[in-house]
């Protein structure tokens, strides 16, 4: 991988759920250390594309992929690639906050423990670092042993972010991470995204959000990547008619 080059390279990706052609010839490069937003109406394939990036579609019966996706220069659908190690490199935050019914501390430690972290001292450091990175440390430092489910929705989502960050991923995928949150919690998560020193791919229904947090934006429609470019350009001078219609609210 060249410094400043793409961290994700997708080439001619076609994806099917059974007979349904969900993605049609998508090619897209995601720049390292930047935030890339995927926008488009429901069912356009943006979430499907996101889930291909850490192989979360592997469990869908009848799913089939052609084309190539490389993460950090390595093909993730090659015969020698291992989904488990890919998911440690590419973290994911879901639409609804989904902390485990365990303590905050144990939620954060889940990933590190899977790869053999056992020493309390090491885990303590990791938990503090991850929670600070997710801008949650000050809120929860006195109640790490409390159930994560007792937190507010916004705090739960930041626990999920911290849980993903505890594995020090290269890339974080976020699937509409604020759609279940109130405006204040949303602002906090967006703030975090803007500050984060990490490659982020975020799916969002909220075009203002895409404009606020991302450097690049990709517009998907009916399984095609219609337009991809710097966020400023997509929102001010879209080249495609369909992009313009969508971002100006004519359909969606």
């Amino acid at each position, binding site marked *: 991988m060249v410094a400043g080059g793409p961290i994700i390279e997708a080439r001619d990706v076609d994806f099917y759920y059974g007979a349904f052609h969900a993605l049609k010839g998508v090619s897209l490069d995601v720049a390292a250390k930047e935030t890339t937003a995927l926008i488009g109406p429901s069912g356009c394939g943006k979430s499907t594309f996101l889930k291909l990036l850490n192989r979360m579609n592997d*469990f869908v019966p009848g799913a089939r992929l052609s084309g190539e996706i490389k993460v950090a220069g390595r093909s993730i659908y090659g015969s020698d690639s291992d989904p*488990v190690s890919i998911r*440690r490199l590419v*973290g*994911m935050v879901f639409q*609804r906050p*989904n902390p*485990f*019914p365990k303590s905050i501390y144990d939620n954060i430690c*889940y990933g590190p423990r899977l790869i053999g972290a056992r020493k309390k001292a090491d885990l303590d450091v990791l938990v503090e670092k991850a929670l600070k990175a997710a801008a949650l440390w000050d809120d929860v430092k006195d109640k790490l042993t409390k159930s994560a489910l007792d937190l507010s929705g916004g705090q739960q989502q930041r626990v999920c972010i911290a849980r993903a960050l505890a594995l020090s991923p290269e890339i974080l995928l976020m699937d509409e991470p604020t759609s279940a949150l109130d405006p204040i919690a949303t602002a906090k998560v967006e703030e975090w995204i803007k500050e984060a020193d990490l490659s982020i791919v975020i799916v969002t229904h909220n075009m203002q959000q895409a404009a606020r947090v991302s450097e690049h934006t990709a517009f998907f429609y009916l399984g095609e990547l219609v337009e991809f470019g710097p966020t400023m350009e997509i929102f001010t001078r879209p080249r495609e008619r369909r992009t313009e219609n969508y971002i100006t609210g004519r359909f969606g």
Partner: protein
Amino acid sequence: MALFGYSLKERQTRELLALGVIRFLGGSFLAVMGALVVYLVYRGGSAISWDFLTEYPRDSMTAGGIWPAIVGTFGLAAGSMLVAIPLGFGAAIYLAEYARPGPLLTVIRLGVNNLAGVPSVVFGLFGLAVFVSFLGFGRSLLSGCLTLGVLTLPTVTAAAEEALRQTPASFREAALALGANRWQAIRQVVLPAALPGMLTGAILALGRAAGETAPIIFTASAALTLNAPESVFSEVMALPTHIFNLATNGAHIAATRPQQFGACLTLIVLVLGLSLFALIIRARLRKGRKW
């Protein structure tokens, strides 16, 4: 004003009518159950004493106690769960987590649910053929536990599978996205969340195992034992079969009436106690696991 035919008054009448019917049905159920318990306490209560619970039967069962039957019932119920829980939970994990959806899975699930409705005497004959005769375990605690284990297996499996299915998919996704493999996600996240629900099925099965009569007549129960069981190959007495024997077989059926009712009451209290114990375990597991 009745815009669409029903006035407010009519709708209120209907509501009251529905409420009345439901209250009547619920009340009837409680009355029947209550009458049963009151009758049992009335007829059996006088027979219950410390000696009745801790002594062996005497004088052609007209005197003495039911201690060996209590021990046998405990042994059979506990042993059957040792058989049904590992097998049932294992099968449920396979069905809910690993098996691919399709016609085969539908047939298996249908089979499991239908087995739960097979009369217990059929399981008794199965146990007699397989465990007692073919495997040569004889009429014994072991054969009884295995038979009752097989009998309760469908209930345990179906309930456990349902509990696993009701665990939010988002827990699995979260674990997998953090680099867990499937078994890790199941063991560390799905199972702890589903366990209280899975135990509910086991609780019901435990009560059933303690109360079943027909399956153990063939496979485990002796009319009378005068020692504690020496090994799993010993015959045991059990409360349901003891009641059955006293009420149908003895030379002094009328004289053993108090013993019969006393044993019935003991059995009911025992099943209640086992259920309560299991409920407490479940409540403890459930703590902090709401979502």
